[in-house]
């Protein structure tokens, strides 16, 4: 019984060591194959295809900005060009802003042109991810 105990404590020690070495390892880019990661990638790919289209981004602080989608990233941060604020009189400080970077975490809606959405393609992609996830 004594031998069993010591072997158990040895294996616990070895597990602890490998966990620590992972923390010390160089930070890797997020894996694309985690459960939650797949849904994020779907919209990232979708927005990448919409680059160059005119969209209206509504933020959580109720500010709505219309502009051409320049780029998007993994956090769904958005860069818009040729921007115009929808209700310009309410936001005078935005008068001379023509390009902006919007943090993904503050976006409430992204309003798209009606012909910008291939609903069937999106539907199929979602069904595929749901089945695989």
């Amino acid at each position: 019984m004594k031998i069993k105990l010591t072997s158990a404590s040895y294996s616990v020690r070895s597990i602890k060591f490998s966990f620590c070495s992972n923390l010390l390892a160089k930070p890797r880019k997020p894996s694309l194959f985690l459960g939650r990661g797949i849904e994020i990638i779907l919209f990232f790919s979708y927005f990448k295809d919409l680059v160059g289209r005119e969209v209206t981004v509504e933020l959580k602080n109720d500010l709505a900005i219309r502009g051409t989608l320049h780029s998007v990233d993994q956090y769904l941060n958005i860069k818009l060009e040729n921007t115009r604020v929808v209700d310009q009189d309410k936001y005078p400080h935005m008068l001379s802003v023509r390009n902006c970077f919007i943090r993904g975490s503050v976006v409430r809606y992204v309003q798209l042109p009606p012909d910008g959405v291939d609903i069937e393609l999106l539907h199929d992609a979602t069904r595929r991810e749901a089945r695989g996830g």
Partner: protein
Amino acid sequence: MSWAGPDDIFLSTSLATYLDKKLLVLLRDGRKLLGLLRSFDQFANVVLEGACERVIVGNLYCDVPLGLYVIRGENVVLIGELDLEKEELPPHMTAVSEAEIKRAQKAEREATDLKGSMRKRMEFLDFD
């Protein structure tokens, strides 16, 4: 699926194209900061040099100088590049001193508080 590296700064959502430019940063608490972007990172933490807060109350505004600012990314709403050829503010707005804008802010705050308390009183009456 390729991840944007440092080479595709023209296509990616990197803030590198805004370096050393005069920017307007909107914060979650509604503040508007202007300044030169000196540094940033993947969390949208930014360093603004020569930062000033543009306080706008109605048709009055004032730029309050703040100096060197490090802003934590979670508070950033929007980072806008100011077009130097265009007017930053509509012509009907007038610049006032710091003391005056503080007075105007206080008056606005009191007005919204009063509106809020009156509404609370009406809700209390609650006509069914």
